[in-house]
């Protein structure tokens, strides 16, 4: 209990207080009220006329964020919005990739075929291996010139080109330096690591489903496919909710993979800020520029987002129990 107060409740309150200050962590704290939050959320909607420079219409310190024709949305802290967009794109791609395959794999593993335990253990390995080591391995696999993945593409396209009339050049993406693919490269690493853990969670959920349900369905003549969709998936709803919620919360805090994949040649924010995430921004503001007040505010905004998802999860879960 004492530990709870010392290392949890206390820091939490302190962090909340700091988020209203401008503080570099060393000198005196200066109370600036809501300004950190105003900086994060500061947006300006405006239009730019003919022959007018964009900078003329923007408020001081504001930077252009999006532009449709003459209409401009500018932000006081452009990077926050870039990070928010990146993490949303990341979560929307990575979470399904880490959840759907896990569901299918769990359904296969649930067939009680020989060797299932072996596969289950293999799928779990990435979850215990540690994200730093894994990112180092993938960094080498992603190498654009001597990496295995691009070499695999060459070989695969060689196969495709055996088809009559086919003559394609294998794509050789620069996984870690082309700003348009970097985020997706991280999605692959994340999903690859998360899918095994989720499989095990799904499998546990499936083993809790009563066998009599399947039996009844078989007597009604249901095939494996319809049994999966009509019994397994609906009965797994609590597990699915849990898996989606935890994976999303994990995805929103993306940092370690970025730090390893892009260091040391690049910042964890990747080329052209293509992999800037809220936690990366928090790290850069709080521990590289020592704007600890602003970084605390960032942390609270991130927490608010995660908290909203958690509440949503609990509400859904309660509805399910009630229904």
């Amino acid at each position: 209990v004492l530990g709870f107060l010392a290392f949890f409740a206390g820091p939490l309150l302190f962090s909340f207080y700091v988020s209203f200050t401008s503080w570099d962590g060393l000198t005196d704290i200066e109370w600036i009220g809501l300004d950190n939050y105003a900086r994060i959320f500061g947006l300006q909607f405006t239009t730019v006329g003919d022959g007018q420079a964009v900078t003329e219409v923007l408020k001081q310190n504001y930077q252009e964020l999006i532009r449709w024709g003459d209409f401009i949305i500018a932000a006081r802290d452009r990077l926050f919005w870039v990070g928010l967009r990146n993490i949303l794109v990341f979560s929307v791609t990575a979470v399904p990739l880490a959840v759907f395959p896990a569901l299918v794999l769990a359904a296969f593993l649930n067939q009680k075929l020989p060797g299932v335990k072996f596969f289950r253990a293999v799928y779990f390995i990435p979850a215990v291996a540690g994200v730093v080591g894994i990112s180092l391995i993938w960094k080498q696999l992603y190498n654009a010139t001597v990496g295995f993945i691009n070499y695999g593409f060459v070989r695969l396209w060689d196969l495709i080109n055996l088809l009559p009339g086919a003559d394609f050049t294998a794509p050789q993406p620069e996984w870690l330096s082309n700003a348009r693919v970097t985020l997706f490269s991280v999605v692959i690493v994340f999903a690859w690591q998360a899918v095994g853990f989720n499989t095990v969670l799904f499998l546990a959920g499936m083993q809790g489903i009563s066998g009599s349900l399947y039996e009844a369905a078989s007597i009604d003549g249901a095939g494996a496919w319809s049994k999966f969709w009509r019994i397994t998936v609906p009965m797994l709803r609590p597990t699915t909710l849990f898996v989606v919620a935890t994976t999303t919360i994990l995805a929103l805090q993306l940092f370690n993979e970025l730090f390893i994949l892009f260091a040391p040649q690049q910042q964890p924010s990747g080329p052209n800020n293509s992999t800037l995430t809220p936690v990366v921004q928090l790290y850069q503001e709080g521990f590289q520029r020592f704007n600890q007040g602003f970084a605390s505010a960032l942390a609270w905004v991130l927490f608010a987002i995660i908290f909203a998802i958690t509440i949503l999860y609990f509400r859904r879960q309660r509805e399910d129990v009630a229904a």
Partner: protein
Amino acid sequence: MNTANAPTKTRAQQRAARKARSGEVTSIWSKVGIYVVLTVVAAMMLFPFIFMLGTSAKTSADSFRFPPRILPRDPVIGEFNGEQVPLYVISIEGSEQQTALVEEGIRAGLFALSDDPTDTYAWPLDRVEATGTTVDYVIEGETESLEVFRVPIDGEIVELPKIRNTSVGRFVDVDDPSAEGFGVVRTSQPVEDISFHWSNYSEVLDIRSFDRAITNTILVTILVVAGQLFTSIMGGYAFARLKWTGRDRLFVAYLGSIMIPFVVLIIPLFQIMVRLDWNNTLGVLVWPFFYTAYGTFLMRQFFLSIPKDLEEAAVVDGAKRWRILWTIFVPLSWPAIATLATFSFLYAWNSFIWPLVAVDVGNEDSSVLTIALSTLGGQGADQPQLIFAGVTLAMLVPMLVFVAAQKYFVENVASSGLK
């Protein structure tokens, strides 16, 4: 329906029903399909680790070779006329021979064999004869006028245009020194054999900071696991069995704290550590993680499921709470304790962001494995084999723990997470 078939059909249906209990598929093709998918996914999961193991035993040059290979290979050195020379496979007189490279840097011409400028043949200039004529040849869309030479190929003399000058090596058949051939050394195929350079491992351990980081990580992990187990068992017992004011309210607060991401706490924790002057010490990696809301929750749930009769009997015997906890509750809770221990272990062993901010980059004395690997990944970018040897070492312990605890871990993690 044919009545004669009816009994067998019923039996088949029974069999199907039995299988259906667990939602199993029955057809042999579905089974084959399932195994194919499971195996492909398993290959995808294992490949990066196999690649890691292979690369960790390569030489530096081998790990940058294209096309990449899994197994480490070394060029074979042979003896020729009492000298150590590298061996290559070269075509001599139309047949592939194992040869020794005896001379390098011979001035040679690169001759075009066909209209394709990449289809070439290299031969020393002092062994060809100019015809004095030229021919038009298209290279990358531009027509050039090239000199034509008489070039011996496999014993025949062929007239070929010379694209440019190059340099070749002289290769001599190991078994028959009179047979010789020429070729561009860089593109020749060296004779290689598979050899594992396990010395990479001792080399990476010789890096002082890495060696120190392993010790630190082990120390930190043991302390964190022990601390978390202790506080979780105590806290879990307090929440499950003791009655005190505010207990349930505090428990809700505990539960809520599970949801709070660690990043929210990084800055205040860092500030506290700076105030206490604890940053840059190993303690900074241990103390904040002594308590775990998740562990307390897990232990409380498990303790609640232990029947009260057991301890009441002990209380009648006059046993103290402390003794009841350690002699009755703890031995009964092994599955939960093992799960929690594995979880804490993986968390402590693999934690990255907190050591990154709490310990200065240059501070090797308090560095941990994850940080050491990250640094190595940066500094040793030209030595992937060392990085991978380090990664393998760092993964070894979690893997062993996983194998040992799999029985508890995989089965209990899942169910406990869902409660």
